């Protein structure tokens, strides 16, 4: 992939951090998350904000787009998971899931796609989940946010296409770090048994999937690449 300016949300840990570390040596990588990426991760420019805080998110986006007027690739990766049956889920947790998993990527996409449309190029990749496909008990709100993000991306892709901007998705099965830490604990089988391929999504294939979208900027859009044998 030729050198790009890449904005990744939630790149202070988990998959986001792994992606940022991978690209940092050859690309300008920007992280938007509550905490900065660790210094040991390489040259990653971090902008701090709680993505559930609309005002803080918009302020951070203003700063990012001012500092980096041309963003080539946006990866909406940040998400939280609360696996609790809806009937006993706290109302504030419902709001936070929707704010971070759905509203924030919409706001971020809006800020970034405006610049991409003017530049007549750009790619937005959303990290989705197996939850909507597998209808996992306890993930009703989480699955709804991810399904909503997929619908959002298909429409946004149509709006971006005339300007050379495309939106695609990575339908992640599970990545064994970050958000899933507290779910997996000492028992990875709890998650692996849900996945047809019975394995975590390998980082090189996730990178390959993203780079495939990023390197085909003309007509591939509105697609979701599913991992783990999920269809």
């Amino acid at each position, binding site marked *: 992939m030729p050198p790009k300016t890449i904005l990744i949300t939630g790149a202070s840990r988990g998959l986001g951090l792994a992606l940022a570390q991978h690209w940092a040596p050859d690309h300008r990588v920007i992280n938007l998350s509550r905490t900065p990426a660790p210094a040991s991760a390489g040259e990653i420019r971090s902008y701090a904000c709680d993505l559930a805080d609309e005002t803080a998110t918009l302020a951070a986006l203003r700063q990012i787009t001012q500092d980096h007027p041309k963003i080539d690739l946006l990866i909406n990766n940040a998400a939280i998971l609360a696996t609790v049956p809806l009937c006993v889920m706290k109302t504030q947790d419902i709001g936070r899931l929707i704010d971070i998993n759905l509203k924030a990527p919409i706001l971020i996409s809006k800020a970034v796609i*405006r*610049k991409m*449309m*003017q530049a007549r190029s750009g790619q937005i990749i959303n990290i989705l989940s197996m939850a909507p496909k597998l209808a996992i008990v306890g993930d009703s709100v989480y699955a709804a946010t991810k399904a909503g993000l997929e619908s959002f991306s298909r429409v946004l892709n149509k*709006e971006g296409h*005339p*300007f050379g901007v495309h939106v695609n998705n990575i339908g992640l099965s599970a990545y064994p770090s970050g958000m899933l830490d507290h779910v997996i604990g000492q028992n990875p089988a709890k998650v692996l048994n849900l996945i047809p391929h019975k394995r975590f999504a390998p980082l090189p294939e996730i990178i390959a999937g993203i780079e495939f979208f990023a390197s085909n900027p003309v007509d591939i859009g509105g697609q979701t690449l599913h991992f783990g044998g999920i269809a």
Partner: protein
Amino acid sequence: MNKAQLLAVILAELQVIFEEGGIGAGPVAADTVLFGDNSLIDSLALVGLIIKVEEYILEQTGREVQLIDEDAIINGSQTPFRHADALADLALLKSNAA
């Protein structure tokens, strides 16, 4: 920032849209129709033009304006998006009010 500058930005972007879309309608001008009957550009191209103007205002003044609002939409045939000159008027009005 004055109306002439805004109009120049609008016409320059319109020229790009015409060239990209292969629209051979002669030179763009203040009365080039942007919306409704006789418009030569589609609605998404108009959206791109509006973004260009909003971003120009932000760069020049630091003010964030939103050119599309309920008033603009419900004005029907008197929409401020009907031609380039009207869009420049709207942009200046919104910028000064921001």
